[in-house]
């Protein structure tokens, strides 16, 4: 079966820029790896970093966020807030034991189809280098643990 080596990559894209940039890449028939699944967002400012956390924990191997270039936000300021919040979250990853390379955020405008192709290709390669995200094995019953801790 083809494509079985796919990893699970989820993208959160701003409707006004990167989503259109991904469309532009499609219109230009710019070939890309098939791993990525795109969720359309109204603005990068809408992206709670916890969506990224939830996505990684729920089964994704990589998460890509893309919004409008700073100063080009459709809503003037959304991406400025997003930049701070996403950067803080990215920096938390090493302490979580998650490779920070599993999450990237970037800016792609609606006209940057080629740039989008580069971003997707590069990020997908990066995730394939990192391989599947490690998962927690099913937990033991916590009651037993509680008993043992004596606390």
């Amino acid at each position, binding site marked *: 079966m083809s494509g079985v080596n796919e990893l699970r990559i989820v993208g959160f894209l701003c409707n006004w820029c990167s989503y259109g940039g991904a469309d532009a890449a499609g219109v230009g028939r710019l070939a890309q790896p098939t791993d990525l699944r795109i969720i359309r967002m109204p603005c990068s400012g809408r992206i709670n970093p916890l969506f990224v*956390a939830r996505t990684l924990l729920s089964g994704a191997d990589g998460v890509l966020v893309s919004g409008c270039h700073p100063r080009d936000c459709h809503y003037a300021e959304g991406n400025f807030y997003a930049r701070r919040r996403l950067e*803080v979250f990215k920096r*938390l990853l090493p302490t979580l034991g998650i490779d920070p390379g599993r999450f990237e955020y970037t*800016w792609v405008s609606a006209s940057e189809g080629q740039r989008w192709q580069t971003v997707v290709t590069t990020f997908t390669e990066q995730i394939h280098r990192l391989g599947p995200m490690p998962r927690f094995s099913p937990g033991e019953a916590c009651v037993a643990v509680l008993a043992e801790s004596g*606390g």
Partner: protein
Amino acid sequence: MNVLSQLKEQIAATLPNLDLVIGWERGFDPLHHTPLFMRRPEDVERLVIDALCVHNLAVYLPGLKNKKVGVAVKGCDSRAVNQLAREGLIKRENVVVFGFPCDGAADLTKVRRQLGDISGVQSAALEGDLLRVVVDGKERETPLKDVLADKCLRCRYPNALTHDHFAGEPREARVQTDDYKDVVDFEALPLEARFAHWQQEMQRCIRCYACRNACPMCVCRDHCVAQSRDPHWVTQEDETREKWMFQIIHAMHLAGRCVECGECQRACPVDIPILALKRKLNKEIRELFDFEAGVDPQAVPPLLSFQVEEKNINERGW
């Protein structure tokens, strides 16, 4: 006059103008102090302050927002008062803060580690630098410094940063800067080891949410997504993943807000070292935005603001 008597006097003098004053009193055993809610003058007599006053009493303030409340605070607790006021979760003018020099608070997990099972403790006394307890008729002792909470060993703010009354003389801080060595050391471990660490720790979580309940900065209260599951950020599945997700949610809700009182970790009945997540975020937020929650009551919370050109965020090229 010692600090306690002075504090009692200050509280007694202010109490008539207030609905209540929150302090600490001896609890169910000599090692466990509990919060004391002083409403009548005679309540003040029960007040204690020593290394066993572990609770951050600022946690009660948002729930008493419209009352006139006095509260006794350690240095770390006072940061929560500042931060709560900054976020409009309390009205600072409704709160009378009683400060005193804090010599550090004990970590009962460490006490257990030093002195063994202390469930049958009959008496506890702090004598100079020693903690002396009698358990099942046997006397045991440990140097206090060996049982102080980690946060106290790196304490930079032993005196309340905001206060309306201060008992005693301010003491000097143990350290001047926080180098976040614990965070650095942990991140020096291999990635797999860090991941395994959390698997190990988080699977012990019993989802009691004591960490959240003890956190003075947790504002969702009755609407915590952990229990409302609406929005559906976490599920009720008994999976380590979901427990961990909750800790990440709590940490991110505290990003740029956590005052590092350490109550989450202290309150954890199974000793999961969850303060590490908040420490890490605080380290990054200090580096990125030169911000420390609850220290400067005027400072704008970094995640509720932005700079058009961020000095310290180097965006990655592609």
